């Protein structure tokens, strides 16, 4: 490899100015296009069922009685797992979800298993909950309204929602590994209440 001569390393406008010009333009554009620090507060984030957006609100009946209203869970870390009894990967990840729920519920984790009841039967749901010994609340989407609102395209789908109601990540399909669930939950719980 030949090293450059001393003469060639001197500044030559015709050769060096285009490089410098491109870099200067890039720096100016970066400064010009930065976001003012006080703009876009998080409470203005529109609702949409994807990462970085506010989790769309819903109300659903719970299997054990009572109702869950998502917006009332603001201030808590929420995992929303959408599942059905006939879905093999949903079954496969239930033990991991139950384990993580038991490990982190004392630290403020809320886990809701939202069953797609419009495509399922409540009797099967009861049997399923007993079979897997689920202790987290199971909500029933009887008319498919939550499924439509959250544009569910695959089962299971899991939404990790932070204390401000912002969806931090979405996992479509499964089964999720226990480490994946735990890592996402740790991130949610790290945030100051």
């Amino acid at each position, binding site marked *: *490899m*030949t*090293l*450059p*001569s001393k003469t*060639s*390393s001197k500044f030559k406008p015709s*050769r*060096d100015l285009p*490089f410098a010009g*491109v*870099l200067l333009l*890039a*720096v100016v*554009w*970066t400064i*010009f*296009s*930065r*976001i*003012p*620090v006080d703009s876009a507060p998080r409470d203005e984030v*529109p*609702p*949409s069922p*994807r990462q*970085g*957006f506010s989790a769309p609100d819903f109300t659903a009946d719970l299997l054990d009685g009572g109702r869950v209203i998502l917006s009332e869970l603001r201030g808590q870390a929420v995992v929303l797992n959408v599942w059905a009894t006939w879905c093999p990967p949903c079954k496969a990840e239930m033990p*991991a979800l139950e384990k993580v729920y038991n490990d982190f519920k004392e630290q403020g984790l809320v886990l809701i298993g939202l069953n797609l009841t419009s495509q399922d039967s409540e009797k099967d749901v009861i049997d399923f909950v007993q079979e897997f010994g689920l202790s987290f609340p199971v909500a029933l989407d009887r008319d498919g309204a939550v499924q439509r609102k959250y544009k569910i*395209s*695959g089962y299971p789908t899991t939404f990790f929602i932070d204390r401000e109601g912002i969806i931090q*990540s979405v*996992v*479509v*399909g499964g089964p*999720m*590994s*226990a*480490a*994946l669930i*735990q*890592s996402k939950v*740790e991130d949610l719980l790290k945030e100051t209440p």
Partner: protein
Amino acid sequence: MYPFLRIGPLLLNFSGLTALVGIWIGLTLTEKEAIRMKLDPNRISNMILIGMMAGVAGARLGYALQYLQAFISNPVSLFSITPETLLVWAGMLTGLLAAVFYGRHMGLSLRPTLDALAPGLAIFMIGLGVSHFLSGNAYGAPVDLPWSITLWSELRHPSQVYETLAATLIFGLTWFSPTRRQGTGMNFLLVVAGSACARIFLEAFRGDSRILIGGFRDAQVLSLVILAAALWMMHRWGEERVAAGGSGQE
């Protein structure tokens, strides 16, 4: 947006498949380019595949180190096929190091190898743009323009279309560049510098930028560093060619 394609009980990640198609076309093009530059196409393919495999392993290990307690409690999860437990930058670094190590071990000449990779890399960037369009990722900032698209409840810049067009332009520049088959490394640097310029410009229209202190977008700052490095190398390698009498080879 069509992020998933359902075929019976199977749910295919359509956008991920598109990115894979981009990798496949890019790999095919790279092999052809390697033959034109009188490099061994098998070695180039092996280098890319080794880099990709090492990249996946590095990305998983990087993620596991970041969430060490979760993986100590569930060590089997280290081998799960879920793509969510990957740390991208760790994977890129590991993959790059593995590819460089393999290339040096097999005696691949640096600059012709880089130039053989250039058009394939540009094709991959086009595939990535299409993949983003299908998944709805890398979405644009809200704006009401005649060419805005409705995405995630709002009218937005079609940033994925901008990204794809920019990658196509870079591919065109690379493909028709007079330096394409000289094996000087300049064509590769052209792709890197062009991609960095495109990201710096187009990031301003994105709605998902991560913000640093002072309101700077992290992708723009990182791209500035990459652009500066690519320009400096273009300058330096150009000087070396002049000093060597313009032979164009190392």
